[in-house]
């Protein structure tokens, strides 16, 4: 069953007072919510890592939730920040030539693509193609270069620029 806003807000209020049982229940609820949130945004093999990073960030920033405001927008802001951070790291990896972010091409991978497609559609086609091939389908830079008909360095540049623009698009969401 999906966690609802009033229950999560109640658990968060108790957690800020130091109630560990409430906090544990809150983290379990947030985990479920985050898994669904990220499933529509990133490749499946990255979801668990991002959920863990978000839970740790949430733990460090517990005091920044104001009980007078809704809980889920606060959690979503932290999740989005971690997501952008991951995109930036991928961009830096692309800059360094690290292109081993392979993903299985099963149903899950295809499903994850559906949700990010609307963001990729906002990028120039060559950037979107380079990101799709290397970061989602797991092709090497050399393979992507052959498929796109671009030089390897141009593929890297397109990934770098595309990921930067993706991060900006998400930030302005």
């Amino acid at each position, binding site marked *: 069953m999906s966690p609802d806003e009033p229950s999560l807000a109640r658990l968060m209020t108790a957690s800020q007072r130091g109630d*560990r049982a409430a906090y544990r229940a809150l983290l379990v609820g947030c*985990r479920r919510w985050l898994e669904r949130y990220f499933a529509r945004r990133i490749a499946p093999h990255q979801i668990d890592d991002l959920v863990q990073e978000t839970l740790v*960030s949430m733990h460090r920033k517990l005091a*920044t939730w104001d009980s007078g405001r809704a809980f889920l927008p*606060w959690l979503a*802001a*932290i999740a989005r*920040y971690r997501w952008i951070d991951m995109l930036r790291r991928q961009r830096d990896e692309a800059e360094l030539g690290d292109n081993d972010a392979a993903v299985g091409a099963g149903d899950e991978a295809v499903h994850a693509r559906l949700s990010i497609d609307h963001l990729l559609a906002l990028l120039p086609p060559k950037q979107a193609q380079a990101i799709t091939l290397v970061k989602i389908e797991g092709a090497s830079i050399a393979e992507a270069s052959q498929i796109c008909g671009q030089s390897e360095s141009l593929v890297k540049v397109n990934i770098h620029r595309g990921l930067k623009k993706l991060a900006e698009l998400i930030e302005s969401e």
Partner: protein
Amino acid sequence: MKDASIDNLIDDLAGDLAPVRPRRVARGSLWVAAGWVGGAAALVWIFGMRKDLVVHGMPPLSMLAFWLTAATGLAATWSALRMGLPGVGRDYGGWRWAVGASLSLPLAALAACIADGHAAMEAARHGFGLRCLLQGLASGLGVGAALFFWLRAGAPTSPTRAGWVIGIAAGAAGATIVALHCSSDEVVHIAFWHGSAVLLSAIAGRLILPRFLRW
């Protein structure tokens, strides 16, 4: 495997929980007010207040510039304080309107330059230009520091934007403080030298702060 590691993480985090005091914008506002008043007190104590301020009050043009700059500083401060408490859908952009309104000062200065370039250059050169700029930058440090520490302990989701906004708030605060000391009532002087404190402070905030605001 991953499921187990997330379960373990949840157990660890729950075991590590300690009570926290929720952060309130009102408390951050007090820090900023202390920084603003402290900067003003320091400048007036070291360099003195403009002589006609107590007797006649500020002339209309300087008064208008003062309140436009103060509005920019207050709007940027409010945005920065809110950035420390994140939430998707929250609007942090109020400062842009104040900045837009305060651009009327450089536009007025530009109009003065076009009307009489020589007189405008003399007005800009007259008095204490560079000193006003440096005093403005230094006087805003209290507000800048208060906002920086507030956001560092908070959770700004766009450190780059936070750096800009802290810089604008600090520069605008410094410019209002300098107006208590500077006796020039020339629009060109105010727009160029006092306005440069806001601009340089904003650029410094953008270049220096984001790396320290990431979390």
